[in-house]
């Protein structure tokens, strides 16, 4: 155990997954687990696993910041911060000089303008509906009999036209997709249409904050290369997905925790 070094943690308890990042000023490591039905217990278990892997214990943590939906219900945290502030900080750590962070998680989507220090200058978040979030993609993929991997393996046939999806309500879109399937449209054409419609919605939402390049895409949905391509296309700007983009919130929380112990 490194006794002389302070270790801090960031926990991002999202609606679908829990992320933990440990940091000591130089070394940084992150872990991911499913939130399940008991995010508090899952977060605790993941944090315990993280400290063991790191080579310390819970008492060895100098400061812990919780973020994400579950932030209000986490044990061990010294303080909680919003995922908006943490994703901005994490995004700017993963890609220094970032102008805009687009974070799409399990049940919400955000576009955040960031200054040179990773500080939020403006943000917009989707309203209480699930349109344009991970949950939306999940429901549609489910209707198409696809899993996360299968969804990304679909490819349009040469000359195949993308379906137009009009409904943005998750429930209505599911009905629309079932209708399209019954009309004989292919899964790849429908899924491509879904990406187009999500990207349009995200870009329309982000327009309020006047997105500025470079744009970094974080959160669980950033791993979907098809949606990322659709976003780039609609935004007409490169959309960067750094390694560890999924951990941006936890990394941001860990960095703010580090600020707390070093200030």
């Amino acid at each position, binding site marked *: 155990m490194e006794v002389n070094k302070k270790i801090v943690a960031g926990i991002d308890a999202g609606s679908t997954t829990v992320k933990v990042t440990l940091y000591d000023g130089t070394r940084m490591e992150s872990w991911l687990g499913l939130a399940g039905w008991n995010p508090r217990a899952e977060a605790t278990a993941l944090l315990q696993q993280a400290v063991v892997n790191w080579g310390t214990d819970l008492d060895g943590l100098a400061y812990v910041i919780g973020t994400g939906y579950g932030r209000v219900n986490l044990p061990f945290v010294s303080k909680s911060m919003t995922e*908006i502030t943490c994703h901005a900080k994490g995004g700017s750590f993963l890609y220094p000089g970032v102008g805009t962070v687009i974070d799409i998680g399990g049940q919400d989507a955000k576009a955040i303008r960031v200054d040179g220090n990773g500080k939020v200058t403006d943000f917009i978040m989707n309203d209480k509906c699930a349109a344009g979030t991970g949950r939306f993609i999940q429901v549609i993929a489910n209707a198409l009999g696809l899993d996360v991997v299968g969804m990304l393996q679909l490819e349009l046939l040469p000359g195949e036209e993308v379906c137009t999806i009009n409904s943005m309500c998750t429930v209505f879109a599911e009905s629309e997709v079932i209708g399209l399937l019954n009309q004989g449209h292919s899964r790849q054409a429908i899924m491509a249409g879904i990406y187009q419609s999500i990207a349009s919605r995200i870009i329309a939402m982000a327009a309020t904050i006047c997105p500025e390049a470079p744009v970094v895409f974080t959160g669980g949905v950033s791993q979907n290369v098809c949606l990322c391509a659709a976003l780039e296309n609609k935004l007409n700007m490169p959309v960067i997905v750094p390694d560890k983009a999924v951990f941006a919130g936890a990394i941001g929380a860990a960095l703010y925790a580090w600020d707390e112990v070093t200030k």
Partner: protein
Amino acid sequence: MSDPVTLLKKAKEAGKKVVGFYCVFAPQELILAAGALGFSLCATKEEPIADGEKSLPRNFCPLIKSSYGFAVTDKCPYFLYSDLIVGETTCDGKKKMFELMSDFKPVHVMKLPQSYLDDNDKAYWLSEVEKLKTVLETTLDAKITEEGLVQAIRILNEERLLMQELAGLMKADPVPVTGQDLLKLMWGRNFVFDRAQFAEQMKEMISDVKEIIASGKGAFPKGAKRVIVTGVPTGVGAEKVLKIIEDCGAAVVYIENCAGMKQFVTLVDESKPPMEAIAEKYLNTPCSCMSPNPRRMEYLGQLVEDYRADGVVDIVWQGCHTYNVESRIVKDFLKKNSKTQFLHIETDYSQGDAEQIKTRVQAFLEMMN
């Protein structure tokens, strides 16, 4: 104090007439000068919305659905005992709602012009105020005299000055009372039976708040973030966002909307002929139904300075198109003319989105650090 139903019954038995209204455009001086009691009617609770939705589209704003739900089920005693309802055409939803309402209640709708800037709009609005005078006289069997108007102007101007004084005390740091308590203090004015008594109560409250300031105590620690709330009316029952802001540790130092100070910031000019002066004051209301609405921007700019606001939260009910669109104008104006942070929140009376709003508000406060 007796409950409103008993007070209303007694007043009616004593021969008093009652006029209900919904909006700060309704010229209250005329009601007072007609010798009637004027009340602002219930429209800020979630409970009657389901009844409102039996007749109105679900995607209407919660305020219209709530007011109609209260009215149609007789759950608002002030509505029940009203001899006349004064409506106004502040939006398409409301004006059509009043058509439905007129099936079961005497309703007079004042037709607003689209702007407060043009002379012909001002002249037109004066004719609407004159029409209301005739309607009140006929319906209530009363005579509105010039002398009665002058007196009513004086009484209500004094109340406005008291409200201004109370609101001004929120400039202090630490903030003496919470924004939610301030709202309750101002809300009391919607249901006044005895205006002289009300003015006395106001004076007592002001001196209580002054004592809090003098003691150095406050509802929040010194240096707490200071937030101005603007947008749609957030009356008692619909103060969800105010509560979230204050639960997150920031003080709501000013409520600019119609549930707050909007109706109190300008007086009726006592040096002008009463009807003209009344028409002028009410038309100057910086409501988003006016196009354009530069007065709201000028006024917000001044408030941000006077109240040293760290942020402005613009609250918009779902379905309120004018406030929703105007939010962009407010955001751009504040960005250009101040260093304050801006947050737009679109919501309704339900609690379903409270957690999401909390996240936005917390992030907004974190931006100020």
